[in-house]
């Protein structure tokens, strides 16, 4: 562990856990929909939250490589949105 | 409960979920997803094993998992291609069950 105190590490982990909880709560939207876009939206939220969690973990676990992971995630986050928008729309409610 | 133990258990449960998906669902895409779940379970188990002893991370399971991920993504991509062609050719999104 790094020279920084135990408290900071715990704090980071706690925030990470909170964010994770937040993320899992967001799953409700995937579940409820109603449209495909809503579900994708939720997935995008997961992406951002995951980035934040990774940054926190990088600090808490003293694994700087995790920042690279976060970087990679944000870099590629747009791909999903692009892929999604190329899926032909169907009438509301169909894209469950 | 140690961290490795926790993830070991999670991996076991994940494997069970994957197998259940394979047994209970017929849609090809779902089955491919289930296979991937099973794959993730195996990988998780390996990485949990690598972390069992304090202060030491076994690189060999990591190498196995990295190789496994490549194999899994290759197989998934091919399976999806095959499923699409099958669907295009037959209009079926599942395999006709021939026995039970």
């Amino acid at each position, binding site marked *: 562990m790094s020279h920084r105190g135990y408290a900071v590490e715990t704090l980071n*982990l706690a925030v990470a856990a909170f964010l994770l909880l937040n993320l*899992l709560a967001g*799953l409700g939207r*995937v*579940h409820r929909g109603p449209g495909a876009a809503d*579900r994708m939206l*939720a*997935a995008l939220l997961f*992406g951002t939250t*995951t980035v934040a969690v*990774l940054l926190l973990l990088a600090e808490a*676990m003293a694994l700087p*490589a995790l920042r690279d*992971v976060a*970087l*990679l995630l944000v*870099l*590629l986050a*747009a*791909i*999903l949105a*692009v892929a*999604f928008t*190329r*899926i032909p729309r169907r009438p509301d409610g169909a894209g*469950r | 409960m140690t*961290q490795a133990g*926790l993830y*070991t*258990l*999670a991996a076991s*449960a*994940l*494997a*069970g*979920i994957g*197998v*259940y*998906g394979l*047994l209970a*669902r017929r849609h090809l*895409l*779902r089955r491919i*997803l289930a296979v991937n779940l099973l794959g993730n379970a195996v990988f998780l188990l390996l990485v949990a094993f690598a*972390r069992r002893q304090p202060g030491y991370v076994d690189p*060999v399971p*990591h*190498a196995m998992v*990295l*190789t496994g*991920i*490549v194999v899994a993504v*290759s*197989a*998934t*991509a*091919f399976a999806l291609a095959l499923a*699409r*062609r099958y*669907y295009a050719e037959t209009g079926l999104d599942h395999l006709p069950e021939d026995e039970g």
Partner: protein
Amino acid sequence: MGLAFDLLLAGGLLGLALQVVASRGLFRSVVLFIALGLLMALAWARLAAPDLALAEAAIGAGLTGALLLSAYRALQPAEEAADPGPAALPRWGALAAAVLSGALVAALGWAALGLEAPAASAGREALARLGESGVKSPLTGVLLGFRAIDTLAEVVVLLVAFLGARVVAEPLQRAGPGPSAPGSGEPVLTAPLLRLVVPMGVIVAGYLLWSGGHQPGGAFQAGAVLAALGVLLRLTGRLQPAAATSPAERLALVGGIVLFSAIGLAGAGTASAVLAYPEAWAYPLILAIETGLAVAIALPLTLLFSGSAGLRWRER
């Protein structure tokens, strides 16, 4: 606190997995599976496997998601009825499936928890003898040094998956993500996004490739990033599917494997054995191989997504 996080993560993983399997809508399952990939990346991070987290991020966020979405599109169920949920299974069938998977969970969990960590292991020896491999990152040492044959075979697996996908290829028009929706132009922000993301991605890939020798990263992660960029370019129409594999593409597809094999076989003469590197040259050779492999990983993955034999830049 760490354990609390882990508990939450493991619970989330399992909950997501359950929903992937049990949810009624297929699209929902696909999205949940993509989300599951993110949680897996977190799990790798928690288990001190940043390499795997990198790979998962590149593959899960970039490739698998795009692949699944485009396959979902191709397999559009005409109506919900086409996909009977688990309820459609006869009750005894669902029960039997549940019992079987439950038994697997119990047996696996019992066996896995009951295993004592061995005192000596291949991993410990790998760490102890990492110096002999010519690189500083344990994972790269294992992948390209001690167990190089696995890595070689793994890249061949990718090539074979591409060849296999060619066998079952759909017509060019329907392949991969398919044609863009008719009548819609390109969204305004696409071009600037690409101008930013693509060069960044190439730089990141190069960085990962270079850093593989001493820290997390390496050929596979770099290749996955490049493949993700390829997917992006294919999605935005900058790359167009082509009916034939050009000679350059063929060379790129097999070049890495040939290079790896050639250096490996040469090892029988220049070093101690096949797939051994001469000591002084180990690092540069490994770097050369990794570069070739990154291309040999990126191109087939992109082609697999594209569903075509080749790719061409869009005519401007």
